[in-house]
């Protein structure tokens, strides 16, 4: 098997990694779809408060491409539609009934999938509302249904603290995963799966599906990083990718003919008493997920997703459709007396400017910025952690100056938005956000 040895990146020694222990969570009273958290869509609402919906009923669609449908993760009554600033649809909340009705789709066997015309399969996935889980490089937007990509990369995830780890969510799911891989094989000429070089039995069993193995610090598991290091031709920049856990949903949908609602969620972070995996539903309320599981002595921040790439939410929020991790961190609003001259035996840094450099141990980290914004001092830390060889300290300047050509030459579109450049920056510059914004602006200019 081809081996990919990746050197650049960074593993955060963060406390609170979920134990590989699964627990079934009591059914929630409500679930929700959160359209505002699905990037690059303009949702058009298709239900009203008070309406009754089934699992798999249409809740909203994309105004630009109505074939992109977003379906209900539960059966019951729509009790609330929350709007955010400028009337973005924050959440469509459904109160669940005890026996939920579900929309029936045609189940497909593996033979049927392999015998099907590609268009029929695409239409089936669009109809079943799962197509938007397929993403396209370089913008990480929803895959355009009319295109055929040169390849589809499957990302296992799990390196970022604290995404669900593949050896946990793939346990007992090998059949579904194989079916999913077969399904992708119908969509693209090539499906590329990378396995970590050090892997347990669960992943070892997938050996025949994999095309390469990788080794390295976070984000060496990112499909964008794999693409960057393996592409031989610029045409491959338009490849697609999907996260393995989402692929399981696709497979479940095809095999059962029902819109999938189960999710395995990793609950981690140093404010969680016993970090673990929870078997629960798509769109579960965060309060339900965290109920009785948090240490209660300090203010906390709910991060949906990993600590580097996830988004911030409140206790009242819901788990996003595409998300499978919740990390609870200390809010970090306290001022520290003479913080900048302390030896810092328990303060992590990419530099070795603290005593923590002398030994490796998991540390507690909070959401404090640990400093104030300053002009770039050319320390090159961002360059040293960038997994795709961008010079973030120069690329962000050209992005901010609106120099599109120059930022593209710097590899703006190769950026995998891993967040490491922002993490290490001693000047506290939001490098990753500037690059991500520049990508979005460029996409909007392209499609306008």
């Amino acid at each position, binding site marked *: 098997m081809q081996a990919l040895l990746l050197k650049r990146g960074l593993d955060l020694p963060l406390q609170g990694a979920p134990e590989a222990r699964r627990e079934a969570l009591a059914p929630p009273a409500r679930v929700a779809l959160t359209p505002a958290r699905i990037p690059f869509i303009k949702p058009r609402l298709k239900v009203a408060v008070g309406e009754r919906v089934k699992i798999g009923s249409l809740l909203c669609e994309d105004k630009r491409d109505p074939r992109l449908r977003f379906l209900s993760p539960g059966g019951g009554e729509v009790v609330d539609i929350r709007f955010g600033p400028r009337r973005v649809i924050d959440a469509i909340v459904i109160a669940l009934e005890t026996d939920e009705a579900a929309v029936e789709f045609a189940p497909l066997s593996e033979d049927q999938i392999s015998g099907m015309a590609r268009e029929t399969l695409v239409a089936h996935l669009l109809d079943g509302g799962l197509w938007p889980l397929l993403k396209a490089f370089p913008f990480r937007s929803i895959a355009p249904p009319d295109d055929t990509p040169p390849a589809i990369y499957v990302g296992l995830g799990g390196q970022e603290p604290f995404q669900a780890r593949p050896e946990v969510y793939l346990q007992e799911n090998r059949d579904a995963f194989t079916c999913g891989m077969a399904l992708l094989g119908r969509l693209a000429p090539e499906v590329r799966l990378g396995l970590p070089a050090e892997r347990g039995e669960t992943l070892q069993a997938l050996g025949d599906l994999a095309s390469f193995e990788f080794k390295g610090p976070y984000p060496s598991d990112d499909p964008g990083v794999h693409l960057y290091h393996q592409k031989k031709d610029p045409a491959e920049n338009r490849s697609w990718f999907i996260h393995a856990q989402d692929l399981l949903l696709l497979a479940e949908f095809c095999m059962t003919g029902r819109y999938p609602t189960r999710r395995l969620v990793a609950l981690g972070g140093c404010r969680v008493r016993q970090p673990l995996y929870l078997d629960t539903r798509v769109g579960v309320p965060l309060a339900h997920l965290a109920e009785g599981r948090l240490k209660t002595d300090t203010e906390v921040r709910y991060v949906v997703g990993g600590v580097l790439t996830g988004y911030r939410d409140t206790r009242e929020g819901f788990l996003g459709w595409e998300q499978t991790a919740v*990390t609870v961190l200390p809010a970090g609003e306290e001022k520290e007396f003479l913080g900048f001259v302390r030896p810092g035996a328990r303060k992590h840094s990419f530099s*070795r400017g603290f005593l923590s450099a002398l030994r490796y141990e998991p540390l507690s980290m909070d959401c404090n910025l640990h400093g104030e914004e*300053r002009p770039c001092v050319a320390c090159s830390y961002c360059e040293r952690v960038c997994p795709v060889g961008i010079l973030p300290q120069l690329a962000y300047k050209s992005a901010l100056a609106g120099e599109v050509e120059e930022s593209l030459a710097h*590899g703006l579109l190769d950026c995998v938005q891993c967040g490491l450049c922002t993490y290490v920056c001693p000047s506290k510059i939001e490098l990753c956000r500037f690059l991500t914004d520049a990508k979005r602006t460029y996409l909007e200019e392209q499609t306008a």
Partner: protein
Amino acid sequence: MKLLKDFFDDQRPHFEPGGRFARYLPFFEAIETVFFTPAETTPGGPHVRDNLDVKRFMTLVIVMLLPHLLFGMYNTGYQALVAAGQAPGPVASLLIGLYHVLPMVLVTYAVGFFWEVLFAVVRGHGMSEGLFVSCMLFPLTLPPTTPLWQVALGISFGIVIGKEIFGGTGRNFLNPALTGRAFLFFAFPVRMSGDAVWTAATVGVDKAVDAVSAATPLAVAALTPKGGGIAAALHEAGYSFWDLFWGLYPGSVGGTTTWLCLIGAAALCFMKIANYRIVAGGILGVLATGFLFNALAGEGSSPWLGLNPFYHLVMGGYAFALAYMATEPVSGPDMDAARWVYGFLIGALTLLIRVFNPAFPEGAMLAVLFMNLFAPLMDHVVVQTRLRKRMVNV
């Protein structure tokens, strides 16, 4: 501590927009953040951040400079006592040094701080901590006899022209401390060179009777006659290689001690605060150029050509300039390949100046400033080469 926190919390509203002293917010924040880290949290992902900030970054450099300051004080007092023909006891040396050096440091900080606050208030941006490093470096590069008004003038030039008019720390293309030092060197050559300036007078001893002040090693070397060996001349003047290494000889306040520079550079490189590529390049540059000169040396050529290159590393302010000035990240290059070249050329240029133009014995200062000017060009070449290798993605 609680008291202090309450005090700052009470005063803060006056400095925030709408308060009486809203303009002086940068000043207030500069003082407050010395005592308390700011409470600011991350706006979004990444939700956790590295603990290193620019304040810590700069503080670590200052921490490495403190031994230089201490040793510089001791050495200043020591040389003053020796020149006055008295026994240089450790306590007396330190006290006399303190008397000479502390006012210079205080004046530098007061004047530098004034300019930084002024520009921060007028421009409405935060105060940057780079200032504190510049103000620590500057007096260490001066002769201990520099009059205080020249100290004030030099640091003013360094901070204002070397940094602030370009936008402050992060946007300066010259090393501010060296800019100030170079200004004094060219504006007041009499006070900045020659034999008399490097040894401070002992308290109570008139400068006029102080006739036995020793020549600096660079001066000894410059006066070596043709065909003579510099190493031998240095030996005769009482400077063995190891004397130069340990640094107990007349010179600038902080720049004589090679061993402290070695420790400082090693520590800063280990902590990834300074870039080891520049330091290694600088050492290689001196050795390579030095050995090349040795090969060129013949009968009757300048004695400098034949000098063992290792002497160059321990003489004058080269080690100090390389450890603390060349490694300043902002005015140096951004690219690793350029850092090797930059360091190497600083070493080569220092030797070129020393060997072929002994009128400027302090070649290191000019070499660093000169290479500061070339850093953007070197970066440009490296960046363009690197970008051409990227597979296009548009």
